[in-house]
Every structure is written in structure tokens, then in C-alpha cells.
């Protein structure tokens, strides 16, 4: 997988959506239908044949399902000949399992330690200043969270796709602080995008730097500042010129926009979006600060693109049309899972913060957590944190295995929008007036959670 440069043009068949995957009737089902019709009829009653019929059912299935088992196996072998089954055999499939493997466990624990000990104490000031401290980016490079997405051929550490690992990293980072997590994770998103979709030339040009100590600040940029923004219908346009492409438009939600050296930017080409690699010093590219309600430590900015000329080789993947769109589509979906993973981390931080608070805070002579009105809010937070987390992980694991994951990305995002926000609001509510002040980090987490359901791009898992 390390030298994988081709993209899949067609979506894998959606194998998980409710109502899209009808279960076919087999011969046993047909027999069941017939027997049911006869057994339940007055005819069977009248002629007293219900019992004999039931005995037939018993004997029939004893051998019937064994035949079915054998037929399944034979069917599996035949599947190997078709194009689709070939793809399936390459994807690892095992048992349902929620335990991370040893490597994932180690990475997640290391990142969580970093995020609670380094990021969280720095978060308050960074939120105020609307930028991340410069030394943080350097320190995070030591963690190696970017190089795990760079193939070994380019001195990185990746031997296989690590969508689940990236989800665990994003979650652990955001447990410390979502705002600071964004500029630290953004280069990892660029590395992942180049690894999955870049041409050989693009990879050789950019990836070695992402494996080193001095990771270039960079981001995959999708969002635009307009209402009802649809990532699949962009206002930013790419037009063909003799030397390559010219980009025009406004992009938003760019972390560490001011200090970034490289962008991968979504723009509409022939009515469909594609991704373009743009170096920050390209003429016509203007960076504008754009601090918002939350994730302020990310140092969010806008990119104003005015006749930005890039060479033909800047098109991610090198080929126009279906390939370029397929890459864009997967990047958007992977980043939605990324934002959900961030929300899962921040929501867990809220839960872990309110538990000791409501247990210690007293009212009417006892801890407020002795009351159901308070305790049930905590129970709901605990349940819905896991809801976001489980659906996000399923999406990440499906993506990693080459299965369809558009559905899971959409559902994880919906949970992030609905439950993530509610967790932020309830977190403040449980602290009462104190939650509204900056004495506690919960109001900041609420602002960040509001953003997680809006963000696009950046956190490409």
C-alpha cells in the first residue's frame, strides 16, 4: 500500500445503509413462506395435518441448512472470479473488536499524555490570543503523528493505511484542546492526502519533508464562508489556462493560516470539485485572519484566491475527471470522520470534567449529583459520547478496509452536530453560572464542539 498512487474512481457499493441492502429470500425462506401459509390455514386445522407438517419442517432443516452452508462456500469461491470479490479479498476482515492493537494503544496513550500535560494548560491563553504558541508545533513533531502517515519509501513510518489510528490520535489530541489540536493535525491530513491520492511526482516533491523534524505547516482546505455550504458544490473555481490552472474564490477554516507553507485546496473544475496543491507563496494568494466563536487557538484564517496560477502538475493525482473527483470525495468523507473524532475527544473531556464537579458541588445540603435532574444529564452525556465514538470508529475501520463509508461519515457528523453540541451545552449547564465564566474550560469546549459539526477538510484521517 505504501506506493499506492492510484485512486478508485467508482464508489465501493454501499453495504451498510439501512433500506439499501435488501436481504434476499433463499430456498429455506421460500419453504418457510409456504409452510406458514399452510400451517396457519383453516385447511390444516380441518384435516389435522399441522403436526405432520411441523415434523417435515424439523427434518427438512436438519439437512437443508447444511446444504446451504456448503453452497455458501462454493458461492464464495465463485465470487473470487469477479472484479468486486477480488477487492474484498484484499481487505482484512476479522472479528468485531473494540480493543485497539498494541501499537494503536501506545500511540493513543502517548498523544493523550501530551495533550493533557502540554495542550490543555496552554489552551486558555491560546484561545485568547487566537493563535497557537510557536514551540508547540515543534514539540508535536517529536510525537511523530505526521510521519505515521508518510510511507517508508519517503522516510516515514507508514506500512499500511491507518485511518483508525488517525481517529484515535485526533480524539486524544482534542481531549487536551481541540483548537490547539487543529494546527498540529493539519499537516498529518496533508500527508495522508498526498499518500493516498498524490502522484509519484507529488509525493516525491512534498512527502519527505513531512517525515522530518521540521514538518511544514499546511492544511487541506475545503470550507467556504457561505450559508448552507455544500462541499460538493464549491464557489471556488479552477479554470484551465495554457500553463495549468487558475484558481479564484474564498476559502475558510484554515488553521495556522498565517504560517502555513502549503495548501491542498478544493475548487470546482468542469462542474465537479477537485484538489489542487498550492504553495503559500504563490502570487494572488492572500491570507486573512478569521477568528471565530471557537477553535480560536487554531489561528483560523481565510484564503483569498485571486487568479492564482498553478501548473498542470498541481492537480492532486494528476488526472482530471473521475479520478480527481473520487479523491476529493474521499478526502471530504475522511475529514468528516476526523471532525467527529475531535468531537468525541472534547466531549469526553466535558464528561470527565463535570463528574467531579457535580459530585463535589453541594446544594440544599448534599451533592447536586444526588439529584436525578443532574445525574441523568451526566448519564446522557456518557451515553452519547460513546455514540459519537462508536459510529466514528466504525466509519474509520470501514474506510481502512476499503468498504463504503460515506454513510458512516454522514452519520458520525450528524451525531457530532446534534449530540456534540448538546454535550457542550449540558456541560455548561451542570456548572451553572460558573460554567458561563472562563474560570472553567467548559465554555470553551462548548464553543469548540459547535465548530466540530461545521468544519470540513483539515483533519483528513
Amino acid at each position, binding site marked *: 500500500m505504501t506506493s499506492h498512487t492510484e485512486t478508485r474512481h467508482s464508489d465501493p457499493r454501499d453495504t451498510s445503509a439501512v433500506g439499501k441492502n435488501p436481504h434476499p429470500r433463499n430456498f429455506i425462506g421460500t419453504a*418457510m413462506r409456504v409452510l406458514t401459509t399452510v400451517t396457519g390455514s383453516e385447511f390444516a386445522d380441518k384435516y389435522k395435518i399441522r403436526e405432520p407438517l411441523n415434523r417435515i419442517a424439523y427434518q427438512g432443516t*436438519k439437512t437443508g441448512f447444511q446444504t446451504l452452508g456448503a453452497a455458501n462456500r462454493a458461492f464464495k469461491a465463485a465470487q473470487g472470479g469477479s472484479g468486486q470479490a477480488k477487492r474484498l479479498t484484499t481487505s482484512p476482515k476479522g472479528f468485531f473488536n473494540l480493543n485497539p492493537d498494541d501499537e494503536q494503544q501506545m500511540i493513543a496513550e502517548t498523544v493523550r499524555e501530551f495533550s493533557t500535560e502540554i495542550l490543555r494548560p496552554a489552551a486558555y491563553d491560546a484561545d485568547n490570543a487566537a493563535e497557537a504558541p510557536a514551540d508547540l508545533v515543534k514539540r508535536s513533531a517529536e510525537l511523530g503523528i505526521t510521519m505515521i502517515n508518510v510511507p517508508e519509501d519517503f522516510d516515514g513510518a507508514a506500512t499500511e493505511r491507518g485511518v483508525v489510528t488517525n481517529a484515535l490520535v485526533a480524539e486524544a489530541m482534542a481531549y487536551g484542546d481541540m483548537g490547539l489540536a487543529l494546527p498540529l493535525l493539519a499537516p498529518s491530513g496533508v500527508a495522508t492526502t498526498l499518500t493516498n491520492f498524490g502522484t509519484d511526482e507529488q509525493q516525491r516533491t512534498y512527502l519527505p519533508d513531512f517525515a522530518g523534524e521540521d514538518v511544514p505547516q499546511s492544511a487541506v482546505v475545503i470550507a467556504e464562508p457561505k450559508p448552507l455550504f455544500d462541499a460538493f458544490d464549491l464557489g471556488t473555481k479552477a479554470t484551465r489556462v495554457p500553463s495549468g490552472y487558475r484558481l479564484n474564490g474564498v476559502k475558510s477554516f484554515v488553521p495556522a493560516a498565517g504560517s502555513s507553507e502549503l495548501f491542498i485546496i478544493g475548487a470546482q473544475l468542469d462542474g465537479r470539485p477537485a484538489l489542487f496543491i498550492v504553495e503559500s507563496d504563490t502570487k494572488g494568494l492572500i491570507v486573512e485572519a478569521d477568528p471565530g466563536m471557537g477553535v480560536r487557538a487554531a489561528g483560523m484564517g481565510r484564503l483569498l484566491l485571486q487568479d492564482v496560477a498553478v501548473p498542470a502538475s498541481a492537480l492532486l493525482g494528476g488526472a482530471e475527471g473521475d479520478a480527481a473527483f473520487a479523491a476529493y470525495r474521499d478526502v471530504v468523507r475522511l475529514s468528516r470522520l476526523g471532525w467527529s473524532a475531535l468531537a468525541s475527544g472534547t466531549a469526553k473531556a466535558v464528561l470527565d470534567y463535570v463528574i467531579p464537579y457535580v459530585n463535589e458541588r453541594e446544594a440544599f445540603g448534599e451533592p447536586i449529583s444526588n439529584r436525578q435532574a443532574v445525574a441523568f444529564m451526566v448519564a446522557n452525556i456518557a*451515553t452519547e459520547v460513546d455514540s459519537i465514538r462508536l459510529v466514528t470508529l466504525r466509519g474509520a475501520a470501514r474506510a481502512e478496509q476499503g468498504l463504503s463509508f460515506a454513510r458512516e461519515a*454522514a452519520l458520525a457528523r450528524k451525531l457530532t452536530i446534534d449530540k456534540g453540541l448538546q454535550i457542550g451545552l449540558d456541560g455548561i449547564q451542570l456548572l451553572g453560572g460558573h460554567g458561563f465564566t472562563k474560570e472553567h474550560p467548559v465554555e470553551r469546549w462548548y464553543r469548540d464542539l459547535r465548530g466540530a459539526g461545521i468544519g470540513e477538510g483539515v483533519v483528513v484521517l
Partner: protein
Amino acid sequence: MSINLELPKKLNATIDQAHQAAAEIFRPISRKYDLREHDYPVELDTLASLYDGLSEAGQAGAGADGGRSQKKSDKPRAEGAVVNGGNMQSVINTMETSWGDVGLMLTIPYQGLGNAAIAAVATDDQLKSFGKVWAAMAITEPSFGSDSAAVSTTATPDGDDYVLNGEKIFVTAGSRATHIVVWASVDKSLGRAAIKSFVVPREHPGVEVVRLEHKLGIRVSDTAVIRFENCRIPKDNLLGSPEVDTKKGFGGVMQTFDNTRPMVAGMAVGVARAALEELRRILEEAGIEIDYDRPAADQHAAAAEFIRMESDFEAAYLHTMRAAWMADNSEPNSLEASMSKAKAGRTGTDITNKVVELTGTLGYSERLLVEKWARDSKILDIFEGTQQIQNLIIARRVLNKSSAELK
């Protein structure tokens, strides 16, 4: 091995088998028995025979005995090995059959909730002697519901027997099962620790089915009131240990719930999926497209609602699978079992009722099954612990509180 939330291939046979029964036996008779409350669905005898044939062929869909704790399994496991076993199989089976009809699922012969209780608590000898029974579960009494410790039915030791006296209500399959698992106190002065479960044959002196309830939903499932009057049963019919351990307390009988709550969550997931599938069909016929790539807020309001509901559905499904997976891997799962029940319970009523709203008088009519699923789903947020009881359990666990502190 890495994180993976897809089911292993080996469960495909279970899914397929349960789905065929759900689609070809349950669905065609679903409305028939909703309209004929208290009629026995004779078609299920066919299914019972099928199950017998399957278990003899070693391919049964786990059924109620799948709830047996894996701790008691004799095979030692390799370090780090992951089990996808009986609990997951049971839950999958439950989801599929409940997709067909949850009331019928509850009245499948020999698959009663009492069977799960027997599987969870019985000694190996008892499991042998009660192996082939259809066991209903009798906990609730007229004077209490959620407060299971308030059991007033008594089991008085007398020679080699216990003598049972009391009245039980809401006994699912109580008039059809061959046996009833009854919660009764062996000594009221010792409190909840003295509550034990007893296996009582239904056709037995002193056991009387007083009446059957008329209900909002799951009308095909009989819900009985059963009176025990000087009902004498052998001492061996007490499940688990007869010792009254006041320190250990309620644990013995309560551990049943860790296995049965994910099953009820699975029922809610199954009914919710039936409703969502029907809604997708109806919306697509109406020309409304559901697009996972475009933001929900940019789409038709009904499509946006579908995505919202499917997100809750997916969470409920995964909560349920997690609880069963933990049970399979001998991890304590009381918290996760309650989370699955709470999430699936409220999601089930939300989805089925929203589907009625979105399908209007079409879905409200008896011509479709949509309105029935809405009525059926309400009980799933009530029995085996209401939404509120689940939240109480979750809150106590998360906040580390006793039942005296958080009432």
C-alpha cells in the same frame, strides 16, 4: 488485532436464517395477530420445529441460551484473543426476528426470557434438567414495577420443598410457556439478598393463570397475570445458590439483566430498522433522495430527518453490539448494557413515531405496519428496566454513587 466494527462472516448464517423466518413467517402474519389478540399463532410451531432441527444440526441461532455467561465455558482462550460468540449471536438473532415482528419474536416457543435467566444463573446440573423448557419470566407484582427488591411473593422452605405464595403480573408468554421463572423471597426479614429465582412448571397444582392483558402493542405476545397459591416445588428448582448472602445481596438474580438488556435493545434496533427501511422506500417512491455526502441541512426536510434518525439508529446498534461483545469476552458490562437499553429504547420510539408522522395517514393506517411498529416499540423502552431506570444505573456507575445516595 485491530479495531473493527463489522460482523464476522461466521455470523452470516445466523443472520440469514433469522431473516428468512422474519420475512417469510413473521411479516405475512404480523397484522393478522395484531388484530386477533390472545389467539395463539399456530404458524410458530413450524418455527419451533425449525429451531429444533437447527440446534440438532448445530446451527441454531443461539436463541435464549446464548445468554449464558462465557465465564462458564471450559475452553481456555489465548491471551488477547477476541470472542464473537453466543451473546452477539443472540442479539443479532433478536434484531433480525424483531425486524419481522417483535411480538412474535417474544412468543417463539422455547426462546423465552426465562430461558435466558436459566442460562445465566443455573448450575450445570440444573441446565441439564431444565434444558428443554419454554420459560417465561415472572418478576413484577401488582404493588411494584421497577423496584425489583420489593418482591412480596414468598417461597417458604418446607421439608424438601418450597411453597410459593403471591401474585405476578406482566408475565410475557405466561400462558404459553411450559415453565415460569419466579422471583420470590425465601425470608422477607433478610431483604433483597433473600430474593431467589425458582423454576415452576405452569401446569402445576397451585399455579393459576388469572387473566391476559389487553395491550397497546405486541398484542400477539400473551401477557399473563399468574397467581401462586400454596404452590409446592422441589428444592432443586431454586436457580443458583440457596444461600442467603446479605453481603453479596441482589447480585445473583440481577446479573440476568446484563444478558437480557442488550437483547431488548436488539429488539428496539430491529423494529427501528424495519420502520427506517419502510420510510426510505416510501420517500424514494415520492422522489426524495437521501444523500450522505451533502449536508443534511441542505436536503429535503424528510431526508434530513432520515439522516438524523439513522444516526441515532446506528449509535443504538453499535451500543448494543458492544454490550454483547463485552459479555462474550467476559468483560463486566452492566454500564454498557444499560447504555444500550437506554439508547435503543428511546431511539426505537423516536424513529417509529417519526415515521408515522412523515408517512401521514398512509402510515397511520392499518394497511401498512408502520403504526404497529410505533405501538410495539413503546414497551421496549419500558420492560427489562425503563429508560429512567437505565439512566439511574448509568448515572450511579459513572458518578460512582450508591443507590442510597442517588435515588
